[in-house]
């Protein structure tokens, strides 16, 4: 068995792939946030069919692994004749996945807003949309920051699954290197360390925000 050496080139290859990880994360987050916001609105809508759609969507997506979703989108696109780069497939799958989770988190934050806030706005003749836009959402945003940032950490970690459909982000880069030099412990240790470097600051930030929130609430 040829045991290659881990060189500086290999290291740079890993570092470059981080850019792709970040790109996919950003894409997933932005698209998922838009979808999630829409889902959240649907979930709290007075129209029953919208609510049902949102509930079913969220329950279904939250009940299946991202990996399966990824495969469905990837193979779904290819059998229908679309040959798109794996980044697109991964982006679409993650958008679907992220929107379900963010939608649910944000719905929770909205529902945690005290009823009197809604009542006061009603008495001021605000429309439902105005109440949401001017009174409820601004307050809910504060509450939603810690879990949203926390979920961003999950997104970054989940991009590792895109490796399975061939997208060359950090994990895939690691696999490629390992397949040439056969040093899995070193390679994946470094891969893990890079992910840690990306995720840990965000985790602490989310924790710090949560602490501040709890202190303010006391």
């Amino acid at each position: 068995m040829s045991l290659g050496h881990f060189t500086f080139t290999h290291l740079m290859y890993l570092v470059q792939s981080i850019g792709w990880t970040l790109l996919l994360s950003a894409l997933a987050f932005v698209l998922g946030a838009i979808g999630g916001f829409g889902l959240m609105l649907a979930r709290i809508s007075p129209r029953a069919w919208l609510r049902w759609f949102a509930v079913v969507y969220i329950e279904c997506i939250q009940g299946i692994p991202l990996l399966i979703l990824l495969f469905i989108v990837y193979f779904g696109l290819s059998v229908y004749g679309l040959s798109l780069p794996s980044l697109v497939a991964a982006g679409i799958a993650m958008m679907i996945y992220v929107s379900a989770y963010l939608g649910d988190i944000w719905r929770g934050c909205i529902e945690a807003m005290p009823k009197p806030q809604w009542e006061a706005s009603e008495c001021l003749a605000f429309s439902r949309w105005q109440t949401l836009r001017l009174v409820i959402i601004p307050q809910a945003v504060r509450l939603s920051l810690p879990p949203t940032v926390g979920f961003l950490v999950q997104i970054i970690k989940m991009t590792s699954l895109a490796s399975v459909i061939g997208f060359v982000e950090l994990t895939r880069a690691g696999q490629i290197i390992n397949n040439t030099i056969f040093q899995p412990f070193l390679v994946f240790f470094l891969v893990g360390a890079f992910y840690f470097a990306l995720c840990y600051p965000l985790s602490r930030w989310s924790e710090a925000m949560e602490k501040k929130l709890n202190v303010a609430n006391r």
Partner: protein
Amino acid sequence: MKYSLDFAPLASYWPVFINGAWLTLKMTALAIVVGVCVGTLVAFAKRSQIKPLAHACTVYIEIVRNTPFLVQIFLLYFGLASFGVRMPTFAAAVLAMVINIAAYAAEIIRAGLESVPRGQIEAAECLGLSKWRIGWHVMLQPSIEKVYPALTSQFLLMMQASAMASQISAEELTAIANTVQSDTFRSLETYIVVAALYLVLSLFIKLVTWALGEYMFRRRRVVRRAAAQAGKVQPAASTAAVAIHGGAA
């Protein structure tokens, strides 16, 4: 060219799918049981006065929570193999899941332990109860009830994470899907069927954990029934709270 969905070729693979689902369930159940036990110990250890121990627990938890599960599995399976430690894929997958779930459970349970009012611990001390008794009766039992929703959400996420074990060729549901779709060339249909099976598994786990909760936390049952009889309305606080503290694997 229009592709038409055709599920018929998959019918004969039904037992194969069921097998995969069963293995996924076994892996998840085993990992959950062991993981929660380990996580409980880590939760207490992290709160202990022995600084190096508490520190080690923090390091362990932060590493697991800030690295992808897929990388953890690779590190465990391929990394150990390169040192000559070979283990069956089932064992490796369960071990990785235990290590992962224990870290999350530890944080969740620790939050529960910390929310036990200091006064109750003092009252228990003044009744002469030993530290272990206090830990079990006064701290852990009410904590588990309080963090149960967050904990059970974590179980569901763990079951989904088990899909990643397919990447080290464990024979669970996702791996089965990969095999079947390469046999039948019906990739989209296969993954749709498997998605449906995961949904069924999710519902099953939700049902089991709900039933377990009803059995364990009779206080909830008793109080709810009494309140219903008295005509009072119980607040449904837990769902909003869990949604906020959302997902995580």
